[in-house]
């Protein structure tokens, strides 16, 4: 369903300097039993965030009040594994609108764009720079600008451009989703399907 429009976002960020964060970590399978899309944020990174008794683990970044914000800066190969869109629902429900990494898994990236979370791929060097800056000063803000496809470390003004295709760019800025587009193509699809 439609989501809030995304044009320019300036926010503090949460650092997660771990590589290969798979979607089973983002939301473990046992929390996929809902029949509605609500409450997933509570179980975001569940087993890294809470111990078996449900107590917050102090050493996990989401439990560290020093860090907050709508941007998650993570290690390489973020979102690998299971295609569960619930992983993105959990990030969105928790309050993240943007994930920054030097490398994303494919299906995860698609799922993000489909529900209005922006995956921003940066160079490994820029990723390290962001990670270091946030860790050194948690009040550091990052600006993600979709119209100009630019991500900026506000404290130093250093920036990098990122890729997003024109179609998805337009969708994100207007809060549109693909179904609206596909439904408008109904006749073309019917004609195509006729000889399938």
């Amino acid at each position: 369903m439609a989501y809030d429009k995304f044009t320019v976002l300036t926010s503090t960020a949460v650092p997660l300097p771990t590589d290969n964060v798979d979607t089973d970590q983002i939301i473990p399978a046992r929390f996929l039993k809902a029949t509605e899309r609500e409450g997933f944020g509570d179980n975001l990174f569940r087993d890294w965030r809470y111990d078996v008794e449900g107590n917050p683990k102090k050493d996990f970044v989401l439990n560290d009040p020093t860090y907050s914000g709508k941007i998650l800066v993570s290690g390489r190969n973020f979102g690998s594994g299971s295609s569960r869109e619930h992983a993105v629902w959990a990030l969105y429900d928790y309050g993240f609108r943007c994930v920054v990494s030097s490398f994303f898994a494919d299906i995860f990236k698609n799922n993000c764009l489909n529900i209005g979370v922006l995956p921003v791929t940066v160079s490994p060097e820029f990723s390290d720079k962001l990670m270091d800056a946030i860790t050194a000063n948690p009040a550091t803000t990052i600006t993600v600008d979709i119209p100009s496809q630019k991500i900026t470390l506000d404290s130093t003004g250093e920036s990098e451009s990122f890729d997003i295709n024109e179609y998805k760019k337009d969708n994100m800025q207007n809060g549109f989703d693909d179904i609206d587009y596909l439904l408008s193509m109904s006749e073309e699809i019917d004609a195509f399907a006729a000889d399938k």
Partner: protein
Amino acid sequence: MEKTTLFDKIWDAHVVKSVPAGPDVFFIDKHFIHEVTSPVAFLNLEKRGIGVKNPSRTVATPDHNVPTVDQDKTIKDKLSRMQVERLRENCAKYGIELHDLGSAHHGIVHVIGPELGITQPGMTIVCGDSHTSTHGAFGAIAFGIGTSEVEMVLATQCIMQSKAKKMKISIDGVAGKGVTSKDLILYVIAQISAAGATGYFVEYAGSAIQSLSMEARMTVCNMSIEMGARGGLIAPDETTFEYLKGKDYAPKGEDWDKAVAYWKTLKTDEGAVFDKEYHFDAADIEPMITYGTNPGMGIKVKGNIPTTEGMEGSNKTSYLKSLAYMGFEPGEAIKGKKVDFVFVGSCTNGRIEDIRSVAEYVKGHKKADNITAWIVPGSREVEKMAHEEGLVKILEEAGFELRQPGCSACLAMNDDKIPSGKYAVSTSNRNFEGRQGPGARTMLASPLTVAAVAIAGVICDPREVFQN
């Protein structure tokens, strides 16, 4: 004429329209759904006030969260029950074919699709599950999608997708004794890493691939996603046609001949260009096992866990974090490590050939006392064959517990969980932290290696266990 790959041929034939500077409107021939990733899609259709465009192109089965005992009774877990009931309601409401719990063709969606002959060469197939890549074994473009895309397929029979880059992985030569298709794919993933094929669609080729049975090919394609690939496929050949012939949903009579004639055209042209190619020699491959928390962390069973030499930064930190989770030290041998559970099952290795190979191996032996051994058939059909062939008796005599079909301990959504801190050697596809239960430590291996571990009680090479 332009030389094209098998992937190009199928892809291009399913593009309704290419959006300028955007993805393709991509037509889907077959859509599989299950209870976990479909309910929100149906709910959204209702909110939009639209229905299912072509129910005959969707097939459903509950598999992810279902119990593997007492399937004839009401599901005890309330949330699981609600998801399964919602699937039943949605299928009834929209006229979608459902292979329900207890019915003759119930099973893991990626096991029943091929088994029924629904999966055919040249098709585009999607499902809200990343192991949809399994169906690529038939020369189909098959991949996993998210719930928004499930909704798109239900509503329009299309999704918006950008065409992936093309990778060819060739494995030539003859694999040694005790080396299965699971070892081939674990070896490939260890070579190119868990992210090595991200952005690509893989075609597997070479004599070692061509000589595999359909079930063994499914194991290979199944794990394409574990190296980041969108999917993987194998050109259809006589082995494919032979497997499909006479299956419930396969074409019959004249239609069959027409279909085979078309299927025979489905191959990569000589000289077609791939964006990336890898070549491996089957003779280099030995029984494999994983030691870490992603499927790229695999070694020979008789090998040592890599040291941190040459690693730095987040790479090293992540590696040590992974080993700490597993309770292993860099540089140590994996052979001889004590194991608590073995699990034979899942869409990777839950088919009849897998169960046959385990039964043949353990026949006349007993599992080690420290091992709990679960064997979960991928479908009712597999379960039935296992009974008819006398495999269940052999396995039970060896101390294995046979459960009813479902995804089971592969992702531990039901009660089949490995307890925290315990070691499981599994024929499944993912060794992520907590994948088989919170705190569970998973090592992935072939059914043969799992059988050997069950008997020995420790990590061992299946080629050595019964040597004496």
